[in-house]
């Protein structure tokens, strides 16, 4: 099992002191190597779910198990290290660091794990996404499609067990959407990485065998 959520609850405190529940998930799982699409309306808690799974946001209660390791009860610093080594993240807005070249952005992805960053591996990953000729280009010198490919290479840098993709094709032109998607799927398949991909796009969703709607297993919205 790559991901297992059990009785996960997350709420935020409102300025008036009241509590706003966001997530209340009894059980959600992704098997090893499985590729799952998660769809849901805006504000349904998709981003919060990704943040909770990645350990960026702590849960109020419940268990989150990734590749056999329960992370919800970990201290933040251990969770950070776990995220660096076991979870890949692809964002909607790429989130490359502008001061870093493509190669350096990938190396940055390797910098927070205990393994020594490898320039060779970073180059291989950029070659895998077809950017072997753009190693030293900075984000502003690249097209949006190229930037997202760098982001994919960065997400794969530490050989994660789970890849989280938050609307990875939303900001990419139509011509590049399919390329990015195939790249992600192929990379996950080849490297035996489970993937949870959040999207609004039905075009994207229909290409996956398993499509989950957040509101169907998140009791907060089920109640709404």
């Amino acid at each position, binding site marked *: 099992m790559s991901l297992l959520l059990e009785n996960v609850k997350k709420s935020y405190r409102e300025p008036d002191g009241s509590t706003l529940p966001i997530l209340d998930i009894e059980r959600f799982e992704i098997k090893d190597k499985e590729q799952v699409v998660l769809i849901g309306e805006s504000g349904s808690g998709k*981003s*919060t779910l990704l*943040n909770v799974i*990645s350990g*960026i*946001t702590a849960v109020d209660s419940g268990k989150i198990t990734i590749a056999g390791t329960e992370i919800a009860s970990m201290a*933040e*610093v251990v969770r*950070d*290290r*776990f*995220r*660096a*080594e076991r*979870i890949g*993240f692809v*964002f909607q807005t790429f*989130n490359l*660091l*502008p*001061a*870093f070249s493509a190669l*350096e952005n990938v*190396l*940055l*992805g*390797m*910098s*927070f*794990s205990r393994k020594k*960053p490898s320039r060779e591996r970073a180059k291989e990953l950029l070659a895998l996404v077809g950017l072997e000729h753009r190693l030293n280009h900075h984000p502003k010198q690249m097209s949006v499609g190229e930037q997202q490919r760098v982001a994919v290479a*960065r997400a794969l840098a*530490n050989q994660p067990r789970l890849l989280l993709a938050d609307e990875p094709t939303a900001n990419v032109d139509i011509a590049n959407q399919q390329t990015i998607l195939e790249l992600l799927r192929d990379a996950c398949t080849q490297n035996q990485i489970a993937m949870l991909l959040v999207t609004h796009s039905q075009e994207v969703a229909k290409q996956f065998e398993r499509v989950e709607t957040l509101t169907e297993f998140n009791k907060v919205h089920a109640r709404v």
Partner: protein
Amino acid sequence: MNTLTIAWKSIRQRRIASLLTALSVALGVTLMISVLVINGVIDRMFNQTASGYDLIVGPKGSALQLVLNTVFRVGAPIENLPYRYYTELQKDPRVKEAIPFAIGDVTQKGGFPIVGTIPRYFALEYIPGRHFRINKEGKFLPGTWDSVIGSAVAKQNNWKMGDEFSLIHGSAESGHVHDEKFKIVGILAPTGTPNDRTVFVNLRGFYQVSGHEKPLEEAIRREAAFFGEKVDEEKLKAQLKESAEHDHHDHSGHDHGHDHGHEVPDAQKEVTAILVQMKGDRLRGFSSIKFQSELKEGNQAQAVNPIQQISWLMTNIVGNIRTMLIVLTSLIIVVSGVGIFVSIYNSMSDRKREIAIMRALGAGRATVFAIILSESVLLCLGGGILGMILGHGLVFIAAPIIEARSGLLIDPFAFSSTELILLPILVVLASLVGFIPAMTAYRTDVASTLSD
């Protein structure tokens, strides 16, 4: 990619702001280095230049003026002592060595101070354990018209062995050039003391320069007044008559110049100061003090301990100026540090997203804290190192100019050991000013920043 590399990348991204902030630190450090180096030079100079003798005996007046004039060759002499006083001092059983100094004129070229003295001066240590060294063919003033010049004089005036030069009477402003010329028979090796900028001439020659001997009658009367004696008018008349006859014979027979060699009577000679070395080792300090107080009781001369005067000068004047300069330059560095704080702190709102991205990629709070702190440290250290280079560059460029204008000898490569703590201090300063921005990074809310 380590913390420092990431911090360096961020500095490069904001290169203009980074450069300006580092430059402000650099300027502060440049000033600090200049102050430290010059202070070190002054310290060394004041502490090393009076070691081969215990006392300076000179006319009554300002003790500090006597020391400054005799040791540092700065300012005018107080007055003069009769030569007889020197010869009597020599006979004092407590005195091991007495070296007369006649200071007054300057060289026509370069305006270097002239010191008339005897060859034994060069046997004294100029700083503890160091003796004067002279060039291979050089000699320490064997002849009447011989001169030994300091290394800086030789360099600046481009003077070589055998060259001859003229003196200007009094200070350079007087413009009266003496006819007599001295010949260079020795060039001293650099000593790092005012001796480097001094021209030593044989005392006999100094007295024989026209106008240096006092008119006989005046000299005899002054000498008698100095020693509290009555002038024997009959004897004086006879002396004046004899002198007039001698002068007539001298002028009709010879030109003024190297070979005239007329001996000046002791009565017409004066010394500006006498360097005195006391006998004995263990009781040297004690006998110096006793000797000093004896002279103090009389009304003819004074004996001053140059070390005391120098330490008074260092404590009360130079020390205070040094403290003030160090405080000022420290403030400049602190202000530069605040500049770094402002620069990094202002950039934090723009960089919140970058920090959130790094956190999302697995960087811990401590890591992003360290990255921001490293940035501050790199800017401070970079500025500091640049400042050190600029500071030493400034000293290198300014050394000959200061030397020419003030007579202070500055080693262009001078290094103050205090500089060694400058970089650790900068690291502490950087850590202080970087702390608040680093805490901002530490507290960044990753989820909300990424969703913005």
